[in-house]
């Protein structure tokens, strides 16, 4: 028999080690289907590692993939800190990208030092505004933001598809549903020649630092943490809970919108309806793996990106499907969720004792 006993104190080392253990466990568990598919487990993981860290090119690819995940991971972690369950980073990413494309493909022509801040601002406003809708629905009407943010993702994606098939379709795009390319002034420069890694990464790292300082050292962060940990005590202590939620919603949405800007202006150069292979949803995994810490988000994003990039190259080398990456990511989320159980409870195995049953009542 297994018994759960609540832990009274959790050592910080333990809390720190858990996501790492969860990641490793996920890798071990994912070995089972690899073996079942007939692949050599060690060789496969070797290829994944080499594909992610094996060369300068691979590493740059890894960081390019980690960039949007840092943004969406931060977006989710800020929101979850306040217990505002933003599952809509995917949609916010797309409106951010759409906003960047709307002004970055020739509508405005200005030098890069104006254009780049402009598209960044536009993406943040678009993402933030989109997240404002479910936030207000939550604070004013009590609508469950899990449902509203999730469903908005589909609305936004359809809207983006409509725009790409209609008004924003590239006339030179050979009929493909894609936007016009970003002007060169509205493009985030590459950091190194012939590599895909771009200045979006620097913006992502700077965002992580800003969020870290905000959460740890600012009154806003204090109020966000208090609201998230105990909303009624926060309300009772005079913390403006509603405006804190709105602030959090705007910040979270803006960060996810930045992911879209960074992808469209840094990597792809134009917008398509499949620009994000679920970066918004993977952001939830990143944030959970990171234990909602902004610094942890960077580490977790790199880990997840490594799994994705490595799995691509492994699948080319070994013929094992790259779906294995999705599997590892999903497993690591499950492992983290399960491990959070270990943080809160001590698990003890006890042998059930056979005892004589006592008769009902005495007569």
């Amino acid at each position, binding site marked *: 028999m297994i*018994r759960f006993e609540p832990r*009274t104190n959790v050592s910080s080392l333990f809390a720190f080690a858990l996501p790492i253990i969860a990641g490793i466990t996920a890798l071990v568990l994912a070995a089972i289907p690899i073996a079942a598919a007939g692949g050599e487990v060690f060789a496969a993981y070797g290829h994944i590692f080499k594909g992610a860290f094996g060369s300068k090119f691979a590493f740059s690819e890894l960081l390019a993939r980690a960039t949007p995940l840092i943004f969406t991971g931060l977006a989710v972690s800020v929101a979850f800190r306040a217990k505002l369950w933003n599952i809509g980073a995917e949609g916010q990413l797309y409106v951010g990208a759409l906003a960047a494309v709307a002004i970055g493909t020739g509508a405005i022509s200005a030098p890069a030092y104006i254009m780049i801040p402009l598209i960044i601002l536009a993406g943040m406003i678009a993402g933030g505004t989109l997240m404002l809708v479910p936030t207000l629905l939550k604070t004013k009407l009590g609508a469950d933001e899990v449902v509203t943010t999730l469903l908005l993702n589909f609305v936004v994606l359809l809207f983006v598809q409509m725009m790409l098939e209609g008004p924003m379709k590239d006339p030179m795009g050979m009929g493909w549903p894609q936007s016009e390319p970003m002007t060169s002034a509205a493009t985030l420069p590459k950091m190194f020649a012939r590599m895909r890694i771009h200045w979006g990464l620097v913006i992502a790292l700077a965002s992580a630092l800003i969020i870290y300082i905000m959460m740890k050292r600012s009154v806003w962060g204090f109020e966000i943490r208090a609201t998230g940990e105990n909303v009624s005590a926060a309300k009772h202590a005079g913390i403006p809970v509603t405006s804190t939620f709105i602030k959090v919603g705007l910040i979270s949405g803006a960060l996810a919108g930045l992911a879209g800007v960074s992808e469209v202006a840094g990597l792809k150069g134009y917008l398509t309806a499949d620009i994000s292979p679920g970066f918004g949803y993977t952001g939830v995994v990143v944030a959970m793996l990171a234990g909602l810490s902004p610094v942890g988000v960077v580490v977790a994003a790199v880990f997840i990106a490594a799994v994705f990039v490595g799995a691509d190259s492994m699948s080319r080398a070994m013929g094992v499907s790259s779906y294995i990456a999705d599997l590892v990511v999903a497993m690591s989320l499950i492992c983290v969720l399960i491990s959070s159980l270990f943080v809160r409870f001590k698990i003890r195995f006890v042998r059930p004792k056979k005892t004589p049953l006592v*008769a009902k*009542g005495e007569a």
Partner: protein
Amino acid sequence: MPETESGHPLLSLQNITKIFGDLVANGNVNLDLHAGEIVALLGENGAGKTTLMNILFGHYVADQGRVMVRHSSGILVDLEPGAPQAALEAGIGMVHQHFTLAENLTGLENIVLGTESLFSRRFSRSKARAKLQELMQSSGLEVDLDLRVSKLAVGERQRVEILKALYRDARILVLDEPTAVLTPQESDSLFKTLKLLAAKGMAIIFISHKMAEVLGASDRVAVLRGGRIVADLPTSQCDRHQLAEVMVGHSVQTAERKPGYPEDETLVFAGVSAGDGREQIENVNLALCKGEIIGLAGVSGNGQSTLAKVISGLEIPTSGSVLLNGKPLKASAAAAIKSGVARIPEDRHHDGIVGAMSVEENLVLEEIRKPAYQRFGLLRFNEIRMRAQEAIKAYDIRCSGPLAVSRLLSGGNIQKIVLARTLDQQPDIVLAAQPSRGLDVGATADVHRRLQEARDRGAGVLLISEDLDELFQLSDRIAVIHRGHICEPVETEKLDKKQVGLMMAGQSIKGEQAA
């Protein structure tokens, strides 16, 4: 009577030890319970009463020791540890402090819940009802079985809980702080019922920290302190003072009542109505003066929490006006704090502190936006730390330091955080809702002293409490709230506890006003 005082007790706890981390919750506890006996388990908060009962009922497994119950053959057998089902089958019924009833089901449905097999196609309502009718008649526990539990008053819910245990043929009844939510009169009737049940051969344990009911209702008193039984003797051999000392472990000094020197009116309610449902308040008129303590007596759930919310700025009255020093009180918690209202919330874990945050963070929770603790939106850690160290010292908050996680502190120390945070802002008004609920004797005396100090400094204190001893000990005037109506406060000297008890039950409020 079928049960006789045969050699074996009905229930025997032997050498029970339970350790949580460094804390010995129960150390080598021995307790026997005989048929026909009412035992009071007395102890301060954290003395291990609830842990012991949870072990008995199978919620926890003891690290050492055994729980034994008398088998039908008359011998003692081990109860399977960690199995509430086994405890139920052995005839142990438990009435928790916080009721475990499904609010959307009727009393009858709640009682039979879990007694029917999942696979039986339908249960026989009439059979269950007949059995319950009989039980109600023999025990005097009258409840409307067909009303949804959400519509039942607290006392009625408790009766449903007891009936639930009786329906399962309980021989041993455990009640955890059964009178916490009852009026004095309801408590009396509960103890009458318990005596009746004991006379029929049941064995009853009730947990309490109220001396009066322990002395009045039990046959035997067991006192727990620090997880150990420090006294186990017949009630007839106990006296109040001695029990208090044994319970606390040292002699106790309670705050003496000192008269206040009331000055001008500061907080004035004029025809205020607010809230809805059970917690509604209607046409409340009340004037609190500087330098006095008004005690508001009443059974919980009669509108106290709405009144507290209005004063706290968390609820807008539907009609009437609330004036603070002549100016209307704004309906916002932040505004209330700013205009000098200190609020000590009823549920300090839920509304008082953010458990996951540190002691120092909780100490500045209300003032975090003040320039003393932030500059340009960034926290001033040194100032916060200094403030925390000063408060920890001044209020004797027992914790490992300013960074200790508040959730892990005892109730008394959590209350000290709330007191330090609110009273150190030199408030004009102190709203203290159930400030000593669940606190031990020492912490209670501390809370009382702080409230008196605030009053002597010139603050008007509104003390909402269910504990008549506390109200009579502290208040300059006492008012009673019943079903949302508040009577005119009367000088404490002109009242006695019995009168107030009757008023709490809704009787002769008009008569009192004439007196």
